[in-house]
């Protein structure tokens, strides 16, 4: 028990906050995979049409 009671986080932070942080962790990964910047002039082929990506907006 000495190990837990001596830990910085367990001494300074309430257990409730720790749980909330753990729950929030997966959501943080969303910010890591930010979508690439889309080139509006990129040429795309949709249903036979040769279009600019911005045409699809």
């Amino acid at each position: 028990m000495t190990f837990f009671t001596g830990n910085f986080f367990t001494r300074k932070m309430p257990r409730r906050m720790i749980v909330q942080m753990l729950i929030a962790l997966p959501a943080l990964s969303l910010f890591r995979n930010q979508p690439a910047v889309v080139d509006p002039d990129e040429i795309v082929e949709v249903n036979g049409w040769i279009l600019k990506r911005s045409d699809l907006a």
Partner: protein
Amino acid sequence: MIFDSYEAFRAANFTAKVCILGSGPAGTTIARKLGAAGIPVVVLEAGSREFSDESQDFYRGTTVGDPYFDLDITRLRFMGGSSNHWAGWCRVLDSQDFEPKAWAPDTGWPISRADIDPYLPEVHDILELPDFRPDVPISDDIRWIQLIKSPAVRFGEKFADELDASRNIAVVLNTYATELAGDGKRVTGARLWSNGQDAGAFSADYFITCTGGLENSRLLLWSNQRSNGGVVPNATALGRYWMEHPTFEGGNAILADYGEFEVDADNEAFFSPTLAAMERLQIMNFGIRLIETPYPHVKRLIADLACTAPDMAEWMSSRLSQNLRCAAQLYVAWEQAPLASNQIELSKTDVDHAGVPRIELHWKKSELERRTLLEGLRLFGTTLAQKNLGRVRIADWIGNGGDYPTNEETAGHHHMGGTRMGTDVTRSVVDANCKVHGMDNLYVGGSSVFCTSGECNPTTTITALACRLGDHLGKVIAV
């Protein structure tokens, strides 16, 4: 002089130095050049002055492979040859068409565009053409090219009086050579057929076959067979590498701005790829014919576009009330890769009235051409989109890899190859001067000598090559 039979010609005691077979654009042009140089020439024309079913019947044949036109419909057998149904569209093969393409075997000519350029002023006179304007690049990939719609010179009509008045040229109608005889070095004579019967043997110092892009191969194949190889000693390529310009509707376009190009009097404009684009995509040459279409087509296209890109469709629609000119149909005609397997053979079962085997044409479009069609439309569509000139929709059957439609133009009635020009005797039939390899006195005129077809109509190039051959032969004979 013009004679209606070989009998009448013989009675005139005209001695010809050169015998030209066929009075189409190539035959007539070469005859005029030689006649002007003071060289006596006889032109044997199989038909008469007018079309007849009896004459056309000699052109019947069969096609194996892809669907093609009836062989007695796709060409004409009377004075002036197939110029009699020519549409008159003119353009010379581009410089790049003469160059070998690393991605397409058996491409490249032994001559360059510069070799025929000196003859273009004469060609312009013959075909009554204004000067061509230079190509206009509308992107790094696509050129706006000019294809002149000429008055469509009918060589038989246009030059009949001149030929009749000539003292050096004798045109003999209803007469042709069923076969040439040769000893492996020279043509020694021709077996003639006139007005429905055998007319005996005929000889001249030089022979030039100008019977068309199908018939040249037929005549030489049959002659060679009868002479045990004495007419075309190196016959590996004879009849092979035959080419057309396959032509299909490739899709549509909605056009927003004509700032970079104008349509002609028929509401058409023409586009081709740059050499760099062909090289990058490893495709053949092609021509896109953009034809403005009536208003209802615009609405249909915009409705279709609205399903995919509603905002773009709305913008296009708004242009309708401003200066949007129209929608367009896109027809694509492309260069066929020269393939030895596309060839003219002699029928083993069917002969004409003179006993000459009919043509069995083996013709099939390749995968490279299919890719040329699709990538060509993509290139054009990309250019229009990038330049905000409009948007292109590729026909479903092309995008989906479907079969070629059977109810469209199919091809251009352009018969090329079969006696192609080259330096390798196993892959060509004539040399750079259109002389049959190994023969001293046999030449070939017309589009059968084409090594590659480019994307444009062949008559202008045929006429230029004929001027060049006429000049060359005039010098050879004068020596």
